[in-house]
């Protein structure tokens, strides 16, 4: 019997990992508690974190810090009894070793909900504290742990300053743009300074979603009565909404060197949205006067992380799916470890594709995205 604080990963390394395969996981999570960030936070917001240490802490949920709208009835053991947080770099390295993962890109836990914070000064202070803490506590050695700078949408100038400041750090490889509940969506021109900074510093931007359906986003799906429906819709729809917002203001052509990645939405939606936007483009090209050809060509150049990878009864369908959007070159592995719906590399390795495609999806595509091609084996 495993204990609730056990990762349950040991002895289950990837079965088909090839000798010369490097596995890059573009989405693993660190647990940034208010107590952990306190010493890194400026006043007066340090006092807020101090007050939050008294608050009850749920899974990705602390009132006043990470406001998950989660009115779902809980039941014992519904999401599996195992540890679902990673508190230290050492613990993360051990977990990734057990998963067979060489390089992991770190994202936050609670700040998946960062865009939902209402007060801009507070939100920016928390983002700055997180970035300081991340670099100091997690990115201090060459152990395969790499970071994504949290860019607070509340203040694009402050976000751009954070990006430029941390881009110089050898273990910062990406920018994290909170995706769920962001308002206005990321295509709004107020965010141009963020994209300018990312393009200038040559860091890819990762849109990371989380299960969150807001009363106005999108439409009335807050009427869902189960976590099942909310989880199915919230992740891909929040990515789709931000993708469309960026397409309608021309972000991919205005920032032609910007590298864009979508995280935690699976990949099944990608060919669907590509076909949808091409269809609309026929009729509404004047809405998108920036484009000289079908907009799906621009989406084809973006990156999509695997988790939560779709699991059809016949896994050959996943191999077919990859052919519909050049997934061979644009899909990047992610586990989402240690969250409730993490994917082991085994699930991706089970997809019946060539070893060459496995190498690309499990690592090489991510190394290209992250400008780390030197890490190839």
């Amino acid at each position: 019997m495993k204990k609730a604080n056990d990762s349950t990963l040991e002895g289950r390394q990837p079965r088909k990992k090839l000798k010369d395969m490097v596995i890059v996981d573009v989405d693993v999570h660190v647990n940034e508690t208010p107590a952990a960030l306190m010493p890194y936070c400026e006043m007066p917001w340090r006092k807020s974190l101090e007050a939050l240490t008294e608050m009850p802490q749920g899974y990705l949920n602390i009132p006043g810090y990470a406001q998950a709208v989660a009115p779902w009835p809980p039941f014992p053991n519904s999401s599996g009894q195992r540890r679902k947080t990673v508190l230290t770099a050492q613990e993360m390295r051990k977990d990734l070793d057990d998963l067979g993962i060489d390089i992991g890109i770190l994202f936050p836990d609670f700040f998946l909900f960062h865009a939902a914070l209402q007060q801009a000064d507070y939100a920016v202070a928390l983002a700055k504290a997180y970035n300081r803490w991340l670099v100091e506590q997690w990115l201090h050695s060459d152990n395969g742990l790499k970071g994504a700078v949290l860019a607070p949408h509340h203040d694009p100038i402050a976000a751009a300053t954070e990006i430029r400041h941390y881009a110089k750090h050898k273990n910062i490889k990406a920018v994290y743009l909170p995706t769920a509940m962001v308002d206005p969506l990321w295509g709004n021109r107020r965010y141009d300074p963020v994209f300018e900074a990312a393009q200038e510093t040559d860091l890819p931007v990762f849109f990371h979603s989380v299960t969150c359906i807001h009363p106005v986003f999108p439409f009335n799906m807050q009427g869902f009565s189960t976590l099942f429906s909310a989880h199915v819709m919230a992740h891909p729809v929040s990515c789709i909404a931000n993708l469309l917002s960026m397409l309608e203001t021309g972000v991919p052509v205005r920032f032609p060197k910007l590298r864009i990645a979508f995280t935690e939405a699976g990949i099944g939606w990608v060919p669907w949205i590509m076909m949808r936007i091409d269809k609309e483009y026929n009729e509404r090209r004047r809405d998108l006067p920036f484009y000289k050809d079908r907009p799906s060509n621009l989406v084809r150049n973006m990156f999509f992380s695997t988790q939560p990878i779709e699991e059809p009864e016949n896994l050959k369908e996943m191999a077919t799916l990859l052919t519909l959007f050049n997934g061979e070159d644009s899909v990047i592995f992610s586990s989402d470890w240690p969250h409730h719906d993490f994917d082991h590399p085994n699930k991706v390795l089970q997809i019946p594709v060539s070893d060459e495609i496995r190498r690309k999806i499990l690592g090489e595509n991510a190394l290209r995205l992250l400008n780390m091609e030197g890490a190839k084996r």
Partner: protein
Amino acid sequence: MSEDLTIATVNELPQGTHKVVNVGGKEMGIFNVNGKFFAVPNTCFHQNGPLCLGAVSGTLIADESTSWKPEWTQEGEVIVCPWHSLEFNVTSGQCIAYPQRKLPVVHLRVENGNIMFPGKE
């Protein structure tokens, strides 16, 4: 080689107007753009709609040269398909949405007040 065909008179097609005519059994749209005459097939590649029954206007373009702000260009040169609004520049045949799509354009000559369609070589 067949002789050139008279397909309309200049008086029938004032500047800025267009119409659909039958040329040897094929429907063609003919256009007067600033006193020059052009003909394109009356069929859109998209879903085979009657392209030239649509309206002529300019179109919106945005790129680096416009600082990514939409600008109205090609006034009087763009036919918009009445079915799904695909746009073509009738002087070049270029589809605005797709660089690889081009209509064959016939440059029409005027003789004694008549608009002439070239005969087959």
